[in-house]
């Protein structure tokens, strides 16, 4: 699945510029022309990263960023701010409000793509080619391989995706809804029990070893809230 980028800018030519370059680099692009639309799309489309222009009608980039950081669903979506303002305190303000990176306009499209990749490496490693480790667990996003104690763990595609998400934020509890949105997509109806079944399969797969001995359980069920990667390894 291609990485989805949301671009918010009130200048159609600049959306075209960024859009073309991102698509050439293999990203999927959606765009918004003002702050309100940007917020709405961030909530409904849950992009993997958001490129936010500072000066937009209805809601400024800064206000959108603040709002994104205030909602659970969008809080951890990385944001890169773009600004043509050129005022001195802007970069600091942007980063303080919660942007992950800040670029002034005019900018080099190549550099923007590079920064998108850099930000994703840190906040969404499962989308890049970096190995994610947790204790003795190793997850290779590109090869779609998981190893525990050096031994291969066999996982179905859904289980792999769930584990990727859990490993990005060890210890953080994900609700069934969040898992649903991430693995099956937004707006799809899946029974809660289906999720539980997949979690059960994941749990068992992680505990099984070559000689059928049982390793400690890594999946923690939090009653009434959801699932997390266990912090005690």
């Amino acid at each position: 699945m291609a990485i989805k980028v949301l671009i918010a800018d009130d200048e159609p030519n600049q959306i075209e510029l960024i859009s073309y370059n991102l698509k050439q680099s293999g990203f999927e692009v959606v765009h918004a022309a003002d702050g309100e639309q940007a917020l709405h799309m961030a909530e409904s489309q849950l992009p993997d990263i958001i490129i936010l222009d500072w000066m937009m009608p209805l809601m400024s980039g800064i206000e959108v960023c603040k709002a994104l950081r205030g909602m659970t669903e969008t809080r951890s979506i990385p944001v890169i701010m773009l600004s043509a303002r050129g005022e001195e305190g802007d970069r600091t303000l942007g980063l303080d409000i919660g942007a992950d990176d800040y670029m002034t306009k005019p900018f080099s499209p190549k550099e923007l793509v590079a920064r998108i990749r850099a930000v994703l490496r840190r906040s969404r490693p499962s989308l890049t080619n970096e190995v994610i480790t947790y204790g003795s667990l190793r997850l290779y996003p590109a090869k779609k391989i998981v190893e525990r104690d050096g031994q291969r763990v066999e996982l179905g595609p859904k289980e792999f995706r769930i584990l990727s998400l859990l490993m990005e934020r060890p210890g953080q509890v994900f609700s069934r809804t969040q898992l649903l949105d991430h693995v099956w997509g937004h707006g799809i109806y899946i029974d809660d029990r289906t999720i539980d079944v997949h979690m059960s399969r994941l749990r068992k797969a992680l505990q099984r070893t070559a000689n059928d001995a049982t390793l400690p359980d890594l999946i923690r069920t939090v009653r009434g809230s959801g699932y997390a990667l266990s912090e005690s390894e």
Partner: protein
Amino acid sequence: MNMHEMDLIKTLGSLVDDALLVIGHDLVITNANPASIRLLGDKVIGTNLNDVIIYSGLAEELAACLDSQKPVEFTATPTNNHYRHIRARMMIWGEDTLIVLLLDMTLQHNLEKMRRDFVANVSHELRSPLTSLIGFVETMQNSPDMKLGDRQRFLNIMDEEAKRMSRLINDLMSLSKVEVDEHIVPESKVFVKSLLMATINVLSNRALKTGHDIRFHDHREQKVTEPVIRGGNDEIMEVFQNLLDNALKYSFPSSIIRVEMHDYANGRLAINIINQGEGITEKHIPRLTERFYRVDKGRSRQMGGTGLGLAIVKHIINKHRGELKITSALNKETVFSVILPYATD
């Protein structure tokens, strides 16, 4: 303070434009000059300094002043008007008297802010088209196998943005020029009717394309004579061109644009440009002549507007000792009225 000293203070106070206060025991104001009354209101004498200006560090400043035996300075806000910015200077006199001078920095503060905003706006307005230009140049340099359709589309965008920058720079130069000369009273004669007809002529081709009908009416008493004002031909033409251009841009296609001349009170001439369009809501009208103010930024950009046209018009009219009146409402016709004094000889 004895009578003689108080008298001296009163005389000095009546000569300065800044608020001069004499403070006695317990920070009570014992004397206030006319400027203080203007700034802080009538009921100044007898009140406590803390009730008249807002500054949380007043006690500390007072202590510092006593300590160092030197004047202290700080910024504060008057209690009666939170939008004013004052610079306060304080010094001890004798045993138990404090002399306070309050300088009203509001105008300076606002001008500074306007200047900062203007610079930020210009920066933004120039960087935006430049972003597209630089961005697409790099994109095309890095994509030798780009599809022809994309190539064409991008070259068109670059052309559009380059022209946008050019128009902005022209308007900035126009604005700059008018501001510098604004105080110079024009001396040469301008034949308004001929100029107006010439402007309508220049725009007639465009009007044809959009189906607009520009109609001219002379409603003056002495229709036979040519109306003459004192001014610069090029500048007055720029005003007419700008206003007619706006009328063409923002009115309904194929509508009628009326250009009318009237005699106006106190020996003046009024030129009205009236168009039928969506109209302008009340709240926007006082701000239309502000630099870079647009009712709809996206639409303005689409029309090729820079946001400076009306600011330029306003400055030219000011220079010519005239007035600009704008009347409009949502879904009503819009009237831009230029009022200029007739040349007296």
